[in-house]
């Protein structure tokens, strides 16, 4: 087998048994990462179970491209029943970068499935095909940075460690699994699942390699893509350094995943930042939402504790293992709104004031240690906290969309990413039909169109959209409620591919370009011109030698997406009714003013027609929103439709 290592490791912590399974059982049908995890979830995560029962599977899955030269491929999907989902925890996915996934493959495995529960705290050490489950008494209670350091000292300085902090140990539903300084599987709360299994860390060390089917072709593709991929797909600006931060804090650019060619403009590493609340020098990566701990002037998040205190809070949340997105977009704005409306003014004596560095320190510590009634409630995530405390339900609904996730590229709860009407209509369809916030892997349409419209003329975007989606109506400002289901589905499939191959969500799919003459991504190789949307397919075939066509690969993505839906239907009776629960959220007026010159909100009637179109295009029943027998059989999921039929859910 090329690309895949051929082995998936299964560790049962209850019985201390490890088994090795064959990847080829799943590989061609479900690719890897999210795809293989979904296939396993259908087989094993049933009947409905609590995320904290030992029977829940915590799956770390890489894909065929992980550990290869393929651009930004060094990622790992983390899947299982997610405690963060509200009100019912259900199966979903998260994803992390860093070097962990690549190292796992060099150690000989495509993935690790953890099940059961250890009697006492343990950590798993995997090195070149060997597996040890070791006692973690001395690691339990430590922060994520210390945990990594101690494991390095014990075993190997080159080991890559994915671990949890105090928040995960205390089953906080917003706890992350973290590797290195800032790469984390955040959304879903999988840190708590790890904690529930008494598993502190998984360390991996490998000296092997990934076999490539056509190395020369891969090398040529990567070299050509290197020239094209100087900007992140969704951020059409080149990265820069802040000269003051370079001098004072040792700021430099750094990538977050193995094999990444792209330098995301928001991605920096700081070598030495003096602590404000606690003594000492802090260092670490700052990416994505982390800079907003220090506030973002002239936006909704206009608090200002200062750069140093903001960085300290970001590092603290990483060390304690708390989801930064949840804190910044959810918890803190919610607390601030409650204070403004006089519902809650302080946290057990600490005034709610994001300008004050001590406030951040207190808040993060309270959540991580479930300190007091408030800390205990906030660790459950915003919507559950509102239920427990019986306050701020209305305020919470402004920041959290249904299913328990804070706003994310939707123009409502997320008030930092500039998305405007009609771009968020596609977001609304994706929110409606997903199992979490769709945008850890589906920034594609919404971020791409929103941000590139600042750089490119709309005519260019229309022209390129016509090529990619089959009609310029997909992005046309004049046709807000037409042809939106098509790009929503296209990007949902690309999102599945990105999580399964895997490739970085910010780098792919490649559509718009600064370097090509007509702004449509293309490269010229010895085999001819390749356009951006074909990059994933070309990388997959060069690495694996499996000659699936582009449409076969898209079909695989569709199969995975349908299987995810089938899991929802079987375990949670998911139907169109639940999908529509996002409508009131999108009926709130948008935060940003777009090209129409005024703030818009969702037109329910027109949106329902789009949803009809979505289900029809998917081959699902329009009334129930469930996959039909014909669709499942066509996708090679006959066994799935058989089981749904028995349950009368099809």
């Amino acid at each position, binding site marked *: 087998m090329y690309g895949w290592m051929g082995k998936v490791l299964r560790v049962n912590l209850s019985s201390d048994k490890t088994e090795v399974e064959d990847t080829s059982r799943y590989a061609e049908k479900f690719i890897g990462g999210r795809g293989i995890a979904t296939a396993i979830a259908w087989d094993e995560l049933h009947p409905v179970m609590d995320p904290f029962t030992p029977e829940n599977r915590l799956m770390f899955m890489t894909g065929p491209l992980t550990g290869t030269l393929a651009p930004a491929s060094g990622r790992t999907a983390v899947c299982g029943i997610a405690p963060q989902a509200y009100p019912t925890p259900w199966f979903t996915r998260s994803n992390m970068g860093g070097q962990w996934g690549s190292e796992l493959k060099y150690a000989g495995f495509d993935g690790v499935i953890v099940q059961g529960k250890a009697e006492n705290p343990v950590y798993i050490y995997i090195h070149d095909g060997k597996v040890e489950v070791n006692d973690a008494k001395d690691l339990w209670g430590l922060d994520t940075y210390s945990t990594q350091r101690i494991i390095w000292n014990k075993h190997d300085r080159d080991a890559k460690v994915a671990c949890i902090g105090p928040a995960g140990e205390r089953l906080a539903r917003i706890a992350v699994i973290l590797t290195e300084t800032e790469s984390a599987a955040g959304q879903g709360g999988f840190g708590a699942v790890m904690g529930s299994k008494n598993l502190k860390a998984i360390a991996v060390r490998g000296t092997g390699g990934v076999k490539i089917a056509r190395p020369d072709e891969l090398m040529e593709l990567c070299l050509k893509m290197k020239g094209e*991929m*100087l900007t992140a797909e969704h951020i059409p600006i080149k990265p820069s350094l802040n000269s003051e931060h370079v001098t004072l804090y040792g700021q430099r650019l750094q990538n977050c995943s193995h094999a990444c060619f792209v330098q995301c403009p928001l991605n920096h590493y700081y070598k030495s930042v003096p602590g404000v609340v606690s003594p000492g020098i802090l260092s670490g990566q700052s990416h994505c939402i982390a800079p907003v701990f220090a506030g973002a002037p002239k936006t909704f998040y206009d608090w200002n504790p200062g750069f140093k205190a903001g960085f300290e809070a970001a590092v603290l949340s990483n060390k304690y293992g708390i989801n930064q997105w949840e804190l910044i977009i959810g918890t803190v704005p919610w607390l601030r709104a409650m204070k403004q409306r006089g519902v809650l003014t302080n946290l057990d004596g600490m005034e709610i004031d994001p300008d004050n560095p001590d406030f951040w320190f207190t808040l993060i510590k309270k959540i991580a240690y479930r300190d007091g009634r408030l800390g205990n409630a906030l660790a459950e995530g915003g919507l559950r906290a509102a239920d427990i405390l019986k306050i701020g339900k209305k305020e919470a609904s402004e920041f959290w969309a249904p299913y328990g996730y804070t706003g994310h590229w939707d123009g409502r709860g997320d008030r930092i990413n500039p998305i405007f009407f009609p771009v968020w209509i596609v977001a609304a369809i994706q929110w409606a039909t997903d199992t979490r916030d769709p945008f850890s892997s589906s920034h594609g349409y919404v971020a791409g169109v929103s941000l590139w419209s600042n750089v490119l003329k709309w005519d260019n975007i229309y022209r390129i959209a016509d090529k990619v989606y089959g009609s310029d109506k997909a992005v046309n400002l004049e046709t807000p409620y037409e042809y939106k289901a098509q790009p929503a589905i296209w990007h949902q499939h690309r999102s599945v591919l990105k999580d399964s191959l895997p490739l970085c969500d910010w780098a792919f799919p490649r559509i718009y370009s600064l370097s090509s003459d007509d702004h449509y991504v293309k490269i010229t190789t010895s085999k001819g011109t390749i356009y951006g949307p074909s990059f994933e397919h070309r990388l997959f075939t060069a690495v694996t030698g499996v000659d699936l066509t582009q449409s076969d690969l898209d079909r695989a993505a569709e199969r995975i997406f349908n299987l995810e839906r089938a899991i929802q239907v079987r375990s949670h009776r998911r139907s169109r009714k639940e999908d529509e629960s996002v409508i009131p959220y999108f009926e709130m007026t948008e935060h940003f003013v777009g090209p129409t010159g005024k703030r818009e909100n969702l037109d329910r009637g027109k949106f329902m027609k789009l949803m009809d179109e979505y289900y029809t295009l998917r081959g699902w029943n329009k009334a129930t929103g469930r996959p039909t027998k014909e669709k499942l059989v066509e996708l090679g999921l006959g066994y799935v439709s058989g089981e749904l039929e028995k349950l009368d859910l099809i």
Partner: protein
Amino acid sequence: MQVCPVEEAMVVDEKTGARTIVEDECIGCGNCFRACPFNTESFIISHRPQKNVYVKCDLCYRRDRGPACAEICPHDALIYISHR
């Protein structure tokens, strides 16, 4: 090169200027591994237990376009310059 007991096992490659280990000649003594002052974490020379030989970077002397690492580096942090 000074500590290698086998004359043909470590040679200077004419084209790239790299000191290279000839796998078929290496007897696996590890002298080079221990003598190299830059080798603190096996970055330069490392052991392959399967064959009991030591390997080190040969700057891709078989490759027409020079070292692949320098070619793929996206930000010119790594560049290849002639030893002359």
